[in-house]
Structures are given as C-alpha cells and as structure tokens.
C-alpha cells in the first residue's frame, strides 16, 4: 500500500487514525499501541503477507537480545532496581516487563557479546536476503541465482534495530516493553523507507500519556506536510521520473545519447530522486505528526549544499547520522590520525552505497562520494576555500555525476550516459530550432525530434526545459517544507493541491517510491 495510493489515503489512514483515537479514549495506554501495531502489520503485509512473520520474528528476537544486553550492561541495571516512584514507566504496564528475571550483576563483557551476537544476527539476516546472490556471483560468477526475494523494508528495519541494540548497550534510551518496542520498529510511517529514527527520539513519545488524544494542531500540520509531500512525489518526482526513464532506458539499450538528451536525463533524475525521497519523508513526518509523534528532519535542501560534506549533512540525514554514529565512529572516526580518518570515510561511503542495493553501481556511487569526501577533506586541510557559488556549483555537478551510476542499469549504461554528458556523441537539436536560428547548425546536428527526450515530439525540448527549470528553481531557491510557516504552507498547498488530486486519481500509472527498492 503506497502512501500515494487512494486506498491508503481514503481508506487505511482515516480508519487507522480513527481507531487509534478511539482506542485512546476507551482503552488503557496499551490499546492505541496495540491497534497501531495491528495496523502496521496490515500495512506491511499488504505487499506480501509472507514477509510479516519475518518482520515479527526479527522484532521479537531483537527485543529479547536487547533485554539480554540491558540486563548485563553496567550502565543500565535492571529496572526492578529503580524505586517504583521514580520510574517513568511505572504507569505503563507494558514497559514494566513483569516477567523479567531477577536482577543480575552487571557484566559489560557479556553485554558486549550479546551486542555482537545481536548485530551479527541482524547483519546475517540482511546479508542473506539482500547480498547472498551478489556475494555468490562475486565468488562464482557463473553460479545460478539463489532466487531469494528481498523482503520489503528489510534494510530499514534492520538498521533501526541495530541502532536499538547499540543504544541499549550504552543505555541511551529507557527500556521498552515488547509492545512499545514493536510499535516503534513497525510504526508504518517510517517502516518501509525511514526516516531511521533513534529509539530515544521516539520511545518517550510512544509512552507519553496524551499520545492517543487528537490534537487539532498536530492533525492540521501533519495533514498539510503529508499533502505537500504527496505533491512532491506525484506532481514533481513522477514528472521528472518520466523524463529520466526515457534517457536512461535508451542508455541501457546501448543507444548513444546526444549532449542534451544525456544531460536532461541526468538532471531529471537528480530532481526525481530528491522529490521522490524527500516527498516520502515529508509524508512520513506528516503521518507521524497526525499520531502526535514527531520525526526528525530527513532532508534539508541538499542541493543547496556549499560542499560535499555539507551535502551529506543535508541529504537523507537519518541515514547519514546512522552511518556516522554506528559505522564511521566505531571504525575509529577521526580519532586515529588523518590517514585512518580518510580510510574510514571511504569505507563508510562504500558500505553506505552497498546498503542501497547489492549491485556494483551502488558501490560505485558510494565510492564516488567517498572520493569526493576524501578530496574535500584534503582540500580543506590545505586551507583552500572556494567562493560560495562556485563551491555549490561544483558540489552539485559532482552529485549529479554520481547519480548516473546509481540510476543506470549497469556499467555499460553508465558509460553510455557519461559519454553523452561529455558530448562525445555530439549535440543534436530539433530542426525547428535550428531552422529558427540557423547559426546553431554550426554546432548542432538538426534532427526532426530528439528521440530520447520526453515524449519525443516537436515541442519536447521547450517542455522538458521548462519543467527542469521549474524543478531546479524550487530546489535551489525555495525553503523546504519544514522551513515554511503555516501560512506559507497554505500558499504552497494552494499552488499544488489540485495538481496532486489530478495526479492521484488521473495519472496514467502509480510509480512506486524509489527508496522502496533499497
């Protein structure tokens, strides 16, 4: 069930929201969480019901592992050691964990072993479903595929739970009973494609006494953020996606793309992935807000970044934060000298790329960003600074080039696209334009239509140009949804709501969110 589908918007969401508030009104504090968890599982099982046991099993095992870790963690003695009066969980029977064993003496070494076991379990699960065939083909290129279906959202809920285990070991959050924990991991707004939220950010909110009380301000703000995210996805991302698909499909078939066709496809994809994923994140944030939960920001106008490090502080912030805190820092971060710092940066980006998918193009994308970050770090150490606009333009160029292997169907398609972008296949222009301004014939080959641009009709060039101009104006000059005041959001909705309705009910097809595949 896509967030952007009528069945979700008109059926699932009102039903779940209504049931949540009813449960809050007539049940105890467990009732709304139980209702929410049931809805989460229906939402998840909508794609493939056979994946639900995997999710449920993963959640159950991780909760047990977290308990083992916490019981043995020096920093977090068992909850029963706390006086009941000072226990913030005391009013919540779910989180008091009545069946827990008697207190044990802290044993940090044992806690560490349990943590390693837990992280290994999660990575093994992810590795099997996501990377087994990939690794097999590295070892034995001619081996047949293992035909393992990738369960939806496994990358996200695995990272989410690794985060929980590590934070449990460091007592960064309060203990959570099975129900709040399951509701936290499976909460449908972030289950499928993030944001990857810290337990300490969400669990206290799930335990808040007024959680299931309808708050008009939250409902209104959540709805407007959701609708703006929906517009980003349906109106903008899908429009640019259609342009990008034409060019990248041609490259995948080995068709030489001319300069404009290749650049327009790359520019369109750069916009598509931003509007798609940030739109999804906005929808997730808006949905969570309707349930009185606040999610952290996931995109902060990344294409306005003045350098590549700044880009990664603005793009998919929750993933960047995860990679920094749970991969880069444990690798040693910047604590072991410059050479190791650069190595850690490179490794983090390569693994971050691989997290997006078991394919070399994702590794190449991560590797490119690793190289960018290493180059940026080295440049900074030299004490050099570029003027702001030049730095921004260079960053944007680097990001656009890196999206090419990320999107292209394999190495050959990547090279085909890059050849076109480098102008090695020449420049072609519609003969309509060359005819209107004949000097262009000196640099451009006149053609009836640019076959791999938009719908390949006579006016495709001005059409795609206008769309790209609008898209780039939005991302480079306007504040993002969360920077807007309530009034400004109203104006943004006035501009986009009708187009969103049009796309929701009358678009020729529903394109899935790009990040679902990761």
């Amino acid at each position, binding site marked *: 069930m896509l967030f952007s589908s009528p069945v979700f918007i008109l059926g699932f969401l009102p039903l779940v929201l209504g049931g949540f508030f009813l449960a809050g009104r007539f049940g105890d504090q467990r009732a709304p969480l139980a209702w929410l968890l049931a809805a989460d599982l229906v939402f998840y099982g909508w794609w493939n019901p056979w994946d639900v046991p995997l999710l449920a099993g993963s959640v159950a095992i991780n909760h047990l592992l977290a308990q083992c870790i916490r019981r043995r963690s020096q920093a977090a003695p068992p909850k029963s050691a706390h006086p009941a009066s000072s226990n913030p969980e005391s009013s919540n029977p779910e989180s008091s964990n009545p069946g827990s064993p008697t207190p044990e003496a802290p044993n940090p070494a044992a806690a560490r072993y349990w943590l390693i076991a837990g992280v290994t379990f999660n990575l093994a699960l992810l590795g099997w479903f996501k990377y087994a065939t990939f690794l097999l083909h590295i070892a034995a290129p001619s081996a047949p595929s293992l035909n393992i279906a990738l369960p939806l959202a496994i990358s996200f809920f695995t990272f989410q739970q690794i985060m929980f285990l590590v934070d449990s070991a460091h007592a960064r959050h309060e203990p959570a009973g099975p129900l709040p924990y399951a509701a936290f991991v499976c909460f449908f707004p972030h289950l499928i494609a993030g944001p990857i939220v810290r337990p300490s950010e969400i669990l206290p909110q799930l335990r808040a006494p007024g959680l299931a009380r309808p708050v008009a301000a939250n409902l209104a703000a959540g709805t407007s953020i959701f*609708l703006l995210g929906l517009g980003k996805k349906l109106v903008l991302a899908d429009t640019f996606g259609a342009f990008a698909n034409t060019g990248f499909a041609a490259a995948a078939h080995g068709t030489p793309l001319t300069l404009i066709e290749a650049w327009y496809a790359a520019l369109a994809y750069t916009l598509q992935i931003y509007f798609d994923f940030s739109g999804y994140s906005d929808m997730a944030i808006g949905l969570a807000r309707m349930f009185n939960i606040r999610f952290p920001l996931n995109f902060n106008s990344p294409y306005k970044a003045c350098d590549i490090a700044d880009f990664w502080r603005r793009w998919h912030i929750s993933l960047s934060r995860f990679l920094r805190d749970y991969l880069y820092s444990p690798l040693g971060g910047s604590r072991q000298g410059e050479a190791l710092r650069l190595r850690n940066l490179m490794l983090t980006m390569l693994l971050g790329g691989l997290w997006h998918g078991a394919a070399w193009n994702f590794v190449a994308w991560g590797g490119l960003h690793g190289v960018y970050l290493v180059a940026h770090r080295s440049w900074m150490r030299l004490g050099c600074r570029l003027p702001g606009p030049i730095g921004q333009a260079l960053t944007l160029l680097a990001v656009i080039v890196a999206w090419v292997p990320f999107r292209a169907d394999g190495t050959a398609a990547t090279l085909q696209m890059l050849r076109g972008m480098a102008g090695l296949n020449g420049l072609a222009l519609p*003969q309509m334009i060359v005819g209107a301004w004949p000097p262009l014939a000196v640099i451009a080959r006149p053609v009836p239509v640019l076959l791999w641009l938009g719908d390949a009709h006579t006016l495709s060039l001005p*059409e795609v140009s206008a769309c790209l101009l609008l898209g780039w104006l939005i991302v480079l000059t306007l504040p993002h949804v969360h920077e807007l005041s*309530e009034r400004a959001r109203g104006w943004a*909705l006035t501009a986009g709501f*009708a187009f969103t309705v049009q796309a929701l009910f*009358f*678009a020729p097809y529903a394109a899935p969110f790009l990040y679902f595949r990761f």
Partner: protein
Amino acid sequence: MRDDHPGQVEALVADVVPRPSGFGRLLCAAGASLLIYAIMFGAVLDRPLDLGFLQHQLDDRLARAATINGPKLVILAGSNGPYSHRCEVIEAMLALPCVNGGVAVGIGLDYLFARWRAQLHAGDIVYLPMEQEQYTAGRTAEALGPDAAIMFRHDWTTLRALSPHRWLAALFAFDLRAALMSAIEMLMVAAHFHDPRAAVTGTSNAWGDHVGHTALLGAPSQTVIAAMARPSASASGIRDGYGTSVIVGFLQWARGHGVRVIGGLPTELDQLPRPEATGAALARVYLAHGGDFLELDNHSRYPLAAFFDTPLHLNEPCQIAHSILLARALAPLLGRTVREPAAPGDDCPSVTGGTTAGETNH
C-alpha cells in the same frame, strides 16, 4: 487622508475577518487550489499549437462534411487516417465525396463519434482503419486524451453530451506539464512564432488529407521509425478493449441510422508483428455487429521506405498508392465503377503497378 500604520490595518482586518484555524486554512487552500485550477484551465490557459491544431483540423473536416449533400465516404481513424489515406484520390476514383476525418490516436473515440454523428446521414459510408491502440485503450486513458482538454476549454456542448466520468476526467485532464506547455505555447503564439510544422511535416488539403509529407522530408526519420518497435495487441486485448466497446456502440448507432460502416486495417510497418489472431479479432469487431471489413492483399503493411515519421504514417507517394489500392477494393463493395487515376501511384517503391485487388470479408 488617513495614514494608518500597516500593522493597524492588519489588526483591523484580523478583527473583522476571522482567522482560519489550521484545518480551516487547509480547507481554504485546497478549495482555492481547485477553483484556481478550474478557472485557469477552463478559461485562461490554452495550447494553441498543440490542442488548438488538433481542434482546428477536426473542425475543418466537419465543416467540409457539412457542405456535402448526399452520400459521402468518411474515413475515421487516428493519424494514420490523414497521413496514409488520400480522400482526394479516393473521391476521384469512386466519384463519391470523401472526407478524411481522423485526427490523432489518443483523441477519445466517444468524442470523435459524438462530433461526427451530427454530420452522418443515411447512405453515408464510414471507413475505420483504426490503429490498434484505439481498440485497446482503457477507459481512463480514453477519457484523458487531448479531446478532454479541448472540450473543457472550448467545447462544453460536446462535453455535456458525454458521461459524468468524462466531465470529471475533463476537469482533471491537466497536469503540471500541461500548465507549463500552455504558458509556452501561448507565449510563442503571442510572439508570432512561425509554426514550422508545415515545412517539416507538410500540411492538410481541403479533403482533410495530410499532404506534402514527401519521402525526402521523411528521410531523416527512417532510423527513428526503425527504432520504434512496439508489440502488437493480442486478440483478447482487441476483443476486451474499452475502445472496442465504443466502436461497437458506434456500429449499433450507424446501423440504426442507415450509415454503413466498413472496418479496415491501419497502415503499418511490415517489420512489426501482427499475429493472424489479432487481424481476425479486428475483423470480428465489425462483422459481428453489422459492419463490413475490408482487408487489402498486402494487409496494409509496407516496408520501412514507405513511411514518413512513424511506423503508421506513410509518406505521400505511398499514401497515394495505398489510397488507389483502397479505392479499387472499395469499389465492388460500394457497387461503384473505378475511374483509374491519371497518376497511378508508381512513385511509391513498395507498391508496383497498383493492380492489387481488394479482398473483402462481409
């Protein structure tokens, strides 16, 4: 003269006009958005180069049909109608007034038939070499064709005659690209942009035929056409298509009004597959509902060199040659004597001598 501080004015306005709550603001924004959208696309924005062109083509052909007294032949199809059929030639050969009434694939068939019904009378003959997409188009896709935008902007009379589903689809036929293209086209027209289409692809004659799409003009598109591979529709796709149901409705109307309908095959590139079952399914649409079906010996399939800019558009010499073959095949079906043309259509390399006889199924 009072010199109110702006802040005081705002405060005054705020006292008089109640501030909307969060949800009130949301509803206002949504309502305003829909209202502005409807006004802009219904009365302000327009696409004179794209949709206006189609609209004028259709209006011109209907206007010609209105001037004809007595039986006439009308060709209705997608763009293969005007590009690959020459009413000018057929009319001369059969001594029967002819109007080439097709415009483009994507124009809703219900809209096309609704416009034409008023000009069709007992004794008229309608030849339908419809493209496969016109049979298989889904209901929503059919409702969102260019005609939806044309009707919402310019032709509420026809829109009112169609179903409520079409009204709603017409209201929501405009996406972001449509808005941007409207602005671009209106600016181009305001700037007296010289439309190069006549020079690049030819123009239309009084019969509604596309003319001037010479083999020379089409030469640069040969590689493009060769790359435009597309699968053939399946027999079940033809049988169950929404477009088929609209055509069947038109056949029933025609039978009730003494209008004779003859189905036909669109001109197609011979490299593209067309399974026999698909051809049979096409014929069955007509034969099972009181129409005739005419299939030429060459099944209206031609080699690459015969095409102009798409695998459905013949170039002008082959358009003429195909029309000669068609007129010869139609003659016995209509009980008419063929007057052979002065120029026998030998300029088309794909059709020699023009002696091929028509084959009819009826």
